[in-house]
């Protein structure tokens, strides 16, 4: 299947958008020095990965996976279950990360990576 054929088909289009979103989050994490913003980036990164999973579980013409009379086609329930777990893991990580940010702010008086690095360098030179 050639690239051009694919480009003409919307069958992969939403995956590409999801990849863009993932990379936007990833970019925030690795390019920003503010500790809160890094965690915001991680959240975007993770939510976008969840979207990838949920998109792959969608079945054309399917409905939500709740058994009911007269429905024959359901979307795949397994990605939903996995992502439920992953969302919880994500919020747990966020909570812990923010708790660390609060402590870092107390100890260093800043939440900017560059300033923290300067302070740590000073401490190291003093040792």
């Amino acid at each position, binding site marked *: 299947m050639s690239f051009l054929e694919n480009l003409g088909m919307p069958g992969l289009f939403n*995956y590409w958008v999801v990849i863009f979103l993932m990379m936007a989050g990833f970019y925030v994490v690795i390019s920003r020095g503010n500790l809160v913003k890094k965690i915001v980036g991680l959240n975007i990164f993770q939510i976008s990965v969840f979207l990838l999973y949920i998109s792959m579980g969608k079945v054309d013409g399917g409905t939500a996976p709740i058994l009911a009379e007269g429905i024959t086609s359901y979307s795949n329930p397994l990605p939903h279950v996995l992502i439920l777990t992953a969302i919880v893991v994500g*919020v747990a990580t966020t909570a*812990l990360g923010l708790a660390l940010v609060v*402590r870092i702010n107390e100890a260093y008086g800043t939440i900017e990576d560059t300033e923290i690095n300067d302070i740590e360098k000073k401490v190291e030179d003093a040792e």
Partner: protein
Amino acid sequence: MILDIIDIVLLVFLVITAVAIIRLNNLFAVVMLLGIFSLISAVLYVHLDAVDVAFTEAAVGAGISTVLMLGTLALTGSEEQKHPHWSPIPLAVVLLTGAALVYGTFDMPHYGDPNAPIHQHVANRYIEKSGEEVGPPNIVTSVLASYRGFDTLGEVAVVFTAGAGVLTLLGHGFVSRRKRHREEDEIQQEVRELDLDEADIERLEEEDI
């Protein structure tokens, strides 16, 4: 399936929100936008038939996470520093990673394809048999609580770990901890003046007792 208009609109909203988050420096705005990002994705989950996931994302991503972030900002300040110099390395890493992922999509089954391998194997048993094997009409509940109940136990353990972790890090009150920090600093200052080291102090303490 051809993407319908709702999908496209929601995805476009997500992209706009993500770009705004990258560009904005006011952290309050960024956090609120993250809440919006999370809510829009919840709507998208509903549209993709993942109602349980949408419910959780709305409650957790848009609710709890936002509240926690606002709580953090109240303690730390809300303006992000402007970047003194821009480095091309993160952008290169991200472009490379993104390119790899896009490369990987070309052999993927198409979106919504009912013949994709993912719909042919394990999931079928859940759809066909969970009613008679487990009971609940909500297949997600059956899988979550019974077939993959161990994952959910792990998930509860993760929540427990986070609770215990936050308690460990912050569970002693900012005031008392700050006071202790200050006392430590003062003690260290005195120690420096006395030219003692910690082993000395310990010995002195032991003698005191």
